[in-house]
Each structure stands twice: as C-alpha cells, then as structure tokens.
C-alpha cells in the first residue's frame, strides 16, 4: 500500500491528543519512526497487528493507552475500561481455582462484533489490554502471546529506567516505538 507521508504526520499528531504528554521533539521523531515501521510491515506481508494497546496500573488507571487514530478513540478507551471488569473476574476466578499454576496470559477477554479484546496481567498487577480487529483471522494465539511478552519486556525496561518514577504516565520513546511496531497500519 502506498504511503502518504503528509497523511501519516497528521495521523501521528492527532494521536498525541489521546496519548500521554510528549515533548514536541518527540512528536517529530515519533512520526518519522511510524512511517518507517509501517514500511517494514508492508514489506513483511499483511499486517497482523493490534488496533489498540493499553497498559493499566494496579490501581486501574491507564499508564499508557494508544489506538489507531482513524476512528473514534473514545470508543477504544471505553472498551478498555469495560474490559477491566472482565480482567478482575478472571484474576479472582484463577485465585479460587484449585489449579496449582496460574498463568499470566489471560487470553480472550470478550469478543464484540468488530473487535476482540485480549488481556495479560503481570505479577505486579499491571494489566496489558490489547484490542484486535475481528477480521484479522490470521492472528494466532501464540502471536498474541509473543506480543504480550514483548510488551512485558519493554514495560520492565521502562520500570528500570532511573528517569521514570513508578506511577507516572509512560513517556519513554523506546516503549512508544515498540508499541508502534505492533499497531495496525491503516492507510
């Protein structure tokens, strides 16, 4: 799919309103990387990526939420918010279960007609929620697991960053770039 650089920049700028505060310098770099990432994805084949990714703290406020800027982003925010109830349900169900082992990956939380929502909780009760397009049937379970693993690794790196105070919004560009590489590219 041909890329329109000016269209990409405007999309990247729009996403700024909904994501956490970013310095102006970062915005310029971010939009460049976005187009670069999408070029790689286009070469690799049909995009098998997420539509919205959110990182929720254990007090249930979002550290980081990012969605493709094409549609009403409020809808995605609302979806993530409602999925938190399902996450809590699954966690308490697992706690009551007599099974010895507890998984970190929560699998499909709930499907809607357009989207599927997946969840993952870390040992520190930080939740990752990923919204995927339902029409993306090629997306397999282990691909979702590997995406969550990448998210977890990047989140751990953010935590270990001395410039990051635990509890703040995530402003790390490295984390942004990693999330961008996982988001669906819409042209």
């Amino acid at each position, binding site marked *: 799919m041909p890329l329109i650089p000016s269209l990409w920049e405007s999309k990247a700028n729009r996403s700024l309103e909904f994501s956490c505060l970013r310095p102006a310098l970062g915005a310029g770099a971010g939009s460049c990387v976005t187009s670069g990432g999408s070029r790689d994805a286009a070469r690799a084949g049909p995009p098998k990526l997420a539509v919205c990714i959110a990182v929720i703290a*254990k007090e249930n406020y979002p550290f980081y939420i990012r969605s493709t800027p094409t549609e009403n982003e409020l809808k995605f925010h609302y979806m993530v918010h409602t999925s938190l109830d399902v996450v809590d349900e699954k966690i308490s169900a*697992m*706690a009551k279960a007599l099974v010895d*082992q*507890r*998984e*970190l990956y929560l699998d499909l939380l709930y499907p809607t007609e357009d989207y599927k929502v997946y969840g993952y*909780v*870390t*040992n*520190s*009760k930080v939740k990752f929620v990923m919204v995927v397009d339902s029409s993306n049937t090629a997306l397999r379970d282990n691909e979702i697991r590997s995406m969550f693993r990448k998210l*977890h*690794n990047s*989140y*751990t790196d953010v*935590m*270990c960053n*001395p410039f990051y105070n*635990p509890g703040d919004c995530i402003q790390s560009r490295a984390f942004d770039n990693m999330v961008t590489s996982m988001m669906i590219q819409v042209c």
Partner: protein
Amino acid sequence: MADTVLFEFLHTEMVAELWAHDPDPGPGVSAGSRGEEVGATTGQKMSLSVLESMGFRVGQALGERLPRETLAFREELDVLKFLCKDLWVAVFQKQMDSLRTNHQGTYVLQDNSFPLLLPMASGLQYLEEAPKFLAFTCGLLRGALCTLGIESVVTASVAALPVCKFQVLIPKS
C-alpha cells in the same frame, strides 16, 4: 566471578559517602538531654532513610524484572518465599537461611552469613556500625514487596555479625 564484589564495594562506598558525620542539629529539632547526640542521631536517621529509599527504588525495579518468568503468586507467603529464594540469589548469590512467620502478617527472614556483613567481622566487633549496612537491603525488600502489591515495613537487626534478621511487618487491611 568479580561480579559479587563489585556490588559490595559500591555498597560500602555508598554507606561511607551518605553517612552523616555532621553533629549539628537541624532547625526545629528539640534538644535532648545531650544536645550533640540528638543532632548526630537526626543526621544519621536522614542518612538511613536516604539509603533505604535508594534500596526501595532498586527493589521496585527488581520486583518488576525478576518474577517475569514465574507464574502469578497465589498468596503472601509465596511472595515472601520468592524474596527469600529468587531475589536473594539474584542479589547475593545465596538463599535466605530461614523464614519464619506467625501467619498474622509478621515474617522474620534470617541470613546466617549476610554477604554485606561477612567481610567486616565475625562476632561482636563493629556491632554498632552494622545497622547502617542493612538500610539499603531493607529498602530493597520493601521496594520489591511494593511492586508485588504488598505494603510493608521492613526493619533489620543484628545480634552478632554476620547473622542478621530482617523483620517484615505487613499490616492487616
């Protein structure tokens, strides 16, 4: 092989650097029966809390990174066991020697040969100096517990070097 001593040297320098030698009391400090002593202890308390808060931040990061491959913890005791085994091995290359609990939220972790105290003495010499070498580790435990969702108060005590006990108090909510 030299990795373990790197942290020990760094820790020793940290304590030496941050330890307050200034006996002057800060403003608003009420004088005790012996003024200089009060000043010294206030300054020392600040240093202890600075060391402890350093340990806290490190513990928070470790608490995020270490349990990555382990499965979710079921209960408090699992978290404490994780601290005694995985965290202690990662930082000090040995496991905690004993973990005791009264099941009411108090846990006593005992290390019979604490690596940060081992090179100092083996016995009662330097007993008064030992607590400041434990402040960072107390913070480390508190930080790791905090990331794993447990608010706690961690104190340490030394009866004879190098045996030391860390007491973790988890208030019941």
